[in-house]
C-alpha cells in the first residue's frame, strides 16, 4: 500500500469547512482504490484530527512520518506553514488548502502543492473580472474587509497594488472578526468610503453577517468574496441579502455540468456536497496523478512524486477544477479562477477568469 497522511480539522475552529474537505479526500481515495488504485496498489489514508492546533499538527506529522507516508494531505495555514521546513527536509509533498502566496514558490516551499492559485492570484482575478465588467466612466472604488488574522492579511498588499494598476480607487479597510455577530460599524465605514466593490476575506458566517447588515443599512456596493467566504451555506445564512454578489472559487460547484460530476454524484449517492468537498476531491486526484507519474518513472517516493508533479502540464481533473500545471520553479497550479455568484439561493458558476503566469507575482 501507499501511505498518505491526512491532517484535518474536524473539531477545531475551521471544522465546518474542514470536515467536508476531508470527506472529499476520503471519497476520492476510496474511488481510486476501487478503480485499481495506483497500478494495483492501494492508497492507505491515515487520518488525524488536529483541531487546528499546531503542536498537534507537528506531532501528527511525526507520527505520519514514522509510519512511512509518501505524501500528505494537509489543511490550514497554521499547520502548513509550520510543516514547510519539515516536509522539505523529509521530502514529503504536501497538498494543502492553505493558498498562501509563498507556498507557491518552490525556492521557499519546495514540497508544497495546492490545486488552487494563491489568495493573491484569486484576488487579482476577481479584480480583473470586476474591471472587465465595469461600464461607468469613473474609476471603480474598492474597499477591503477581512478578519484580523494571518489568513485575512496575507493577500492584501498584492491586491491593493494590482487594484491600483488596474485603475481602481482603493478607499480603505475594515476588519471583521470571523465570529462577528454584527457588521454595522463596518458597513457604516464602507458607506462613508462610498465603495462600489468590497473584497471580503472572511469565512461564510462573517460574510453572511456583512451582507445582511449591508442590505439592512442600504449599502449599495457589491461584494467580492474570497474562496472561504462563499459556499453553499452563504445563501442559507444571508438569505436574499447575498443575491448577486460575487465569489471566487477554485473548484466546480456541486451539480455543475462537467465530466467529473458524474463520479462525484455516484460517490455521494446524489447527496449535494459543498464546494470544499470538491476541492478535497480534486486535491486527491492531483496527488494520485502525481503518484501514477512517479510510478511510471520508478518508485513511488516523496521525491519522485514531487518531481513527477513538476512535469505535470494542463492536467484536467475532469472539469472539476481548471487545468493544472506545476513547474520546478513555479508551483502555482494554474492562473485561472472560477467566479461564482448566488442566484435564487444557489451558488452558480459564472465564468473562469485567467491571468497570465507572471513571474513577478510568484510568492507575493
Amino acid at each position, binding site marked *: 500500500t501507499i501511505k498518505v497522511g491526512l491532517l484535518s480539522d474536524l473539531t477545531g475552529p475551521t471544522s465546518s469547512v474542514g*470536515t467536508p474537505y476531508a470527506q472529499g479526500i476520503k471519497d476520492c481515495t476510496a474511488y481510486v482504490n476501487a478503480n485499481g488504485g495506483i497500478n494495483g496498489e492501494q492508497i492507505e489514508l491515515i487520518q488525524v484530527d488536529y483541531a487546528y492546533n499546531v503542536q498537534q499538527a507537528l506531532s501528527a506529522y511525526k507520527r505520519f512520518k514514522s509510519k512511512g507516508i509518501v505524501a500528505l494531505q494537509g489543511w490550514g495555514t497554521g499547520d502548513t506553514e509550520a510543516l514547510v521546513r519539515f516536509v522539505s527536509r523529509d521530502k514529503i509533498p504536501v497538498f494543502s488548502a492553505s493558498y498562501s502566496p509563498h507556498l507557491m514558490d518552490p525556492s521557499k516551499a519546495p514540497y508544497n502543492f495546492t490545486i488552487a492559485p494563491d489568495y493573491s492570484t484569486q484576488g487579482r482575478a476577481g479584480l480583473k473580472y470586476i474591471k472587465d465588467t465595469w461600464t461607468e466612466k469613473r474609476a471603480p472604488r474598492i474597499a477591503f474587509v477581512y478578519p*484580523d488574522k494571518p489568513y485575512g492579511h496575507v493577500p492584501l498588499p498584492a491586491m491593493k497594488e494590482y487594484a491600483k494598476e488596474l485603475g481602481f480607487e482603493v478607499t*480603505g*479597510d475594515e476588519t471583521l472578526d470571523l465570529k462577528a*455577530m*454584527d457588521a*454595522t*460599524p463596518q458597513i457604516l465605514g464602507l458607506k462613508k468610503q462610498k465603495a462600489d466593490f468590497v473584497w471580503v476575506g472572511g469565512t461564510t458566517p462573517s460574510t453572511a453577517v456583512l451582507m445582511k447588515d449591508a442590505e439592512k*443599512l442600504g449599502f449599495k456596493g457589491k461584494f467580492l468574496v474570497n474562496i472561504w467566504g462563499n459556499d453553499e451555506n452563504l445563501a*442559507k445564512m444571508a438569505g436574499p441579502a447575498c443575491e448577486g454578489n460575487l465569489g471566487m472559487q477554485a473548484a466546480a460547484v456541486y451539480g455543475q455540468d462537467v465530466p467529473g460530476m458524474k463520479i462525484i454524484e455516484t460517490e455521494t449517492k446524489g447527496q449535494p456536497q459543498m464546494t470544499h468537498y470538491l476541492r478535497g476531491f480534486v486535491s486527491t486526484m492531483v496527488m494520485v496523478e502525481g503518484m501514477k507519474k512517479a510510478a511510471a518513472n520508478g518508485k513511488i517516493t516523496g521525491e519522485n512524486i514531487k518531481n513527477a508533479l513538476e512535469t505535470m502540464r494542463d492536467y484536467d481533473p475532469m472539469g472539476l477544477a481548471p487545468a493544472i500545471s506545476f513547474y520546478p520553479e513555479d508551483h502555482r497550479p494554474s492562473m485561472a479562477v472560477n467566479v461564482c455568484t448566488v442566484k435564487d439561493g444557489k451558488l452558480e458558476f459564472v465564468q473562469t477568469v485567467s491571468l497570465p503566469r507572471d513571474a513577478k507575482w510568484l510568492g507575493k
Partner: protein
Amino acid sequence: MEYYFQLIINGLVVGSIYSLVALGFVIIYKATKVVNFAQGEMVMAGAYICFALTVQYQIPFALAFLMTLAFSVILGLVIERMILRPLIGEPIISVVMVTIGLSSILKSLVQVFWGTQIRVFPPILPQEPFILLGLPIAPVYVAAFVLCLLLFAVFSLFFKYSSIGIAMRATAFDQQAAQSMGIGIKNIFALSWCIAAVVSSIGGIILGNINGINSQLGHLGLKVFPAVILGGLDSLLGAALGGLIIGVLENVCEGVARELFNLGGFKEVASFVVLVIILMVKPYGLFGTKEIERV
C-alpha cells in the same frame, strides 16, 4: 459625527447580547461563587436544543421555546449534580478548570449530535428593521435589549428581596454557615444552575436568530469576560451595563483606531485594554463588592 453616533447606538444594541450572556454568568457567580468558563457553551447548548426542536422535529416555535427552557433546567441540574457539586469548597482555580473541562464536554457533545456544520434557524422574529435615529436595527437586537432589561430587573429584585435570593447570596459566601441556617444548599446550587442555564438558553436562541449557529459559538463566552469583570463579578447592574459599555467601546475604539492610526482589528483587544486600565483604578470593577479583608 453622525458616524460615531451611529457607532454608539449600534454598540449599545450589540452590547445587549453581551449583557444577556453576562447576566447568566453573574447569576451563577452570585449564588455559588463559581466562575463559569462554560457560559458560552451553555448558550450554545441552548441554541442547539432549540434548533433541534424547531428545525429537526418541526415543533412550532412557541412550544419549542418552552421545551428548550425545560431542557435547560435539566441541563443545569445535570451539570450541577455531576460536575460542580463534588467541587464544593475547592479553590477557585479548580473550579475554573472544571468549568473549562465542562465547556469542552458540551462542545464535544454538540459536535457529536449535530456535527460541525453551520445550522440556520428559521426566521422567527420579523425581519423588518426598526429605525432608531436613522440607524436600522434588526428586531433580534431589540428583543435582546428588552429581554436583557427584563431579566436584569427581575433578578435584581430577586436577589435583593426574595428569601431565596438572599439565601443564595448567603450560600455563596459561606456554605456551611448557610446550611446551619436551614438553607438547603444543594437545592440552592441546583436552582441557580437551572436559572443560569435558562438565561443562557434564551441568549442562545437570540444568537441563533442572528446568524445561525455552529460548534464554535461558545467563544462568545470569552468575549463576555471583559463585560462581566468591568461591571464587577457579582453585580447584576455591572453585568448589564458592562455588556453595553463593552459593546460601545468595541465599536468606538475600532472606529477611532481606524481613523487615526489606520490600525485594524483593534476591536478585539480594545475591550481588554480598557478593562485592565479600569481594573487598575477600581480593582473590583465598576460595581463589584469589595472583599472585606481584615486581619
